[in-house]
């Protein structure tokens, strides 16, 4: 597999300002630190899954990478170009980078026929003639397993799974190199989820796509990805090859997260053995030091003083924990 880097982020941050109280003249500035210093790398043809619970910043990270919201700090390098500063040609960028969202219902215009929806980005991004666009629409529909006559249908005539196929067809129509998938199957039923996951894997092989997969579902991340980044309260706490992270998690949060994910086997009742207390902290006033320390079984007083940095504990494997030796 090629080791060409397609996307890398260096210490990316995204803060959203919040006003304190009702005083509109208040000078005191507070921020939701949605993404607080995230560095990840996605290589060509690979899938990096970003997992975490709601509010951990995974979706904000995806939106920041896609420049749907500008980063507060840090650097995003896509295909060798720094896209986080200076003038960016978005037409060029979005030819190469596309996104699929969680809710297929709201990502398609209800009054546009499926064919029009898929053609829309092509008209804006590619300088193609009409028949070339029509050809590309047909090609994309075929790639996602829908017949040509679906181009004439309206979204309301489609099922949830079919709508998500259309959204995927639209994303791959410009032949991008990176597709950001934000919870692509969370709104779907189990049998449809399996269809979409399989489709995504087939498309990845066929078009050499790289995926950044945002999901809260550990089983999906495990199945789909080559690398996993675990996020907690705006930080990446663990990063490494999927198999190692799943089988030998080292950060206490990753351990808790993986053992909380129910597995469909009644003989392995992992769920009822979990001991994790508390809930995800506020992103405005995160706990001092390591953000996981109030919930961590290994926490010592030092943990509430300093936030640990992500350190490479073995090749390709990063953990942000002061006491990583305790979980070995």
């Amino acid at each position: 597999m090629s080791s060409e880097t397609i996307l890398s982020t260096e210490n990316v941050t995204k803060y959203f300002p919040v006003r304190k109280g009702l005083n509109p003249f208040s000078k005191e500035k507070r921020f939701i630190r949605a993404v607080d210093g995230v560095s990840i790398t996605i290589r060509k043809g690979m899938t990096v899954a970003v997992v975490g619970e709601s509010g951990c910043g995974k979706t904000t990270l995806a939106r920041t990478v896609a420049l749907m919201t500008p980063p507060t700090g840090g650097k995003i390098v896509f295909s060798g170009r720094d896209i986080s500063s200076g003038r960016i040609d978005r037409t060029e960028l979005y030819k190469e980078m596309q996104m699929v969202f969680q809710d297929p219902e709201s990502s398609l215009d209800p009054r546009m026929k499926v064919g029009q929806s898929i053609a829309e980005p092509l008209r804006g991004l590619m300088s193609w003639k009409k028949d070339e666009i029509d050809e590309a629409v047909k090609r994309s529909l075929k790639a996602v397993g829908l017949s040509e006559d679906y181009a004439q249908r309206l979204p309301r005539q489609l099922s949830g799974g079919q709508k998500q196929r259309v959204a995927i067809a639209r994303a791959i129509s410009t032949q991008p190199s990176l597709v950001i998938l934000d919870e692509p199957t969370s709104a779907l039923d189990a049998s449809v989820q399996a269809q979409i996951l399989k489709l995504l894997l087939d498309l990845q092989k066929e078009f050499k796509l790289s995926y950044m997969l945002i999901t809260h579902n550990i089983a999906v991340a495990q199945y789909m990805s080559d690398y996993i980044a675990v996020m907690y309260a705006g930080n990446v706490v663990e990063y490494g090859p999927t198999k190692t992270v799943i089988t030998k998690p080292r950060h206490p949060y990753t351990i808790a997260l993986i053992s909380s994910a129910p597995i469909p086997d009644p003989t392995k009742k992992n769920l009822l053995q979990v001991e994790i207390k508390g809930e995800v902290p506020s992103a405005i006033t995160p706990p001092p030091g390591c953000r996981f320390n109030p919930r961590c079984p290994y926490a010592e007083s030092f943990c509430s003083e300093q936030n640990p940095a992500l350190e490479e504990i073995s090749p390709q494997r990063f953990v942000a924990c002061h006491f990583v030796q305790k979980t070995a």
Partner: protein
Amino acid sequence: MEDLLSIEGFSVKYTTSSGTVTALDNVSLDLHPNELLAIVGESGCGKSTLGLSIIGLLPRSTATVSSGSVLYKSKDLVKLDSNKIREYRGTEIAMIFQEPLTSLSPVYKVGEQIAEAIMIRELRKKGHKVHSDLMQHTYTKQTQKISRLPRLSRKIPTDLKNEVIDYLKLVRIADAEQVLDRYPFELSGGMTQRVMIAMALSQEPALLIADEPTTALDVTTQAQVLKLMKELMHKVETSILLVTHDLAVASQVADRVIVMYAGEIAENADVYSLFSKPLHPYTSGLLACVPTGYKDTEELTPIAGTIPDLRNPPTGCKFAPRCPRAMDVCTTTRPHLTSQEDNRSVSCFLYE
């Protein structure tokens, strides 16, 4: 052991502008005391309708019960009028929904809402017939004789306060004394769902219907809530009917699992035999859809097609158009739920 709940040949139809939808089609099941029965299926399979119809919460304008009975302690709940069923709903038969925030009143403090529930229970024990119209009234009367400043002057009576704290502690809310005085919007999703469970348990219900209780929660919170439900179930001796779309959740907590498809029961088995040896092709198909391994070693085998349009379902077995093992008979005749060994039953011609 006598069944706590016994549903027989139960069918529910919804009238819509584009035709009649058979949401439940001849459903029969039994729930034993102190059992956790999970109803599993994809959206539109009728699992929520089943939960709602037990306590008479079906939308009266569109839903009709076309046949069957719901026997709770050998009393038919379907035949009760709307006043009579209120004696059961929320009291002996409690319910928890998916969205805890929409189930709690936004204008009352959490403690007040639990206190109110306890008050109702006490009145009920004394033989009063209490239902929801009375609830606000009774509560207001007891807590504030003169109500000029309604919100500020409301106080939870001290004798109830301790019990409220006990219930909050029972559902593992650490700082119960503070949580008491908060409004639901000030609490996290996991906390509000715990409050809902506390409220439901305060009625000492014999049956708890939980409709996707953890679907809106994060995985670590889900694990906490499910663990809590399972522990409390034995502590307060109640039965739980857990409605969920998540096979993995069912496998972790259920004693018995019913798999539903398009308004019918496909399979009914104890949790161990269902997962080790699924009989119905839909059950095995559903299990094969759940990713458990890695992409380079395991291949997902999705079920082809989509769920049928229930306005005109296929003749014969409703799963036949998607079934990899369909035979000729499947497309013409409808299979019935038949008993198999190990106390399980399945609705499929492969086993008739």
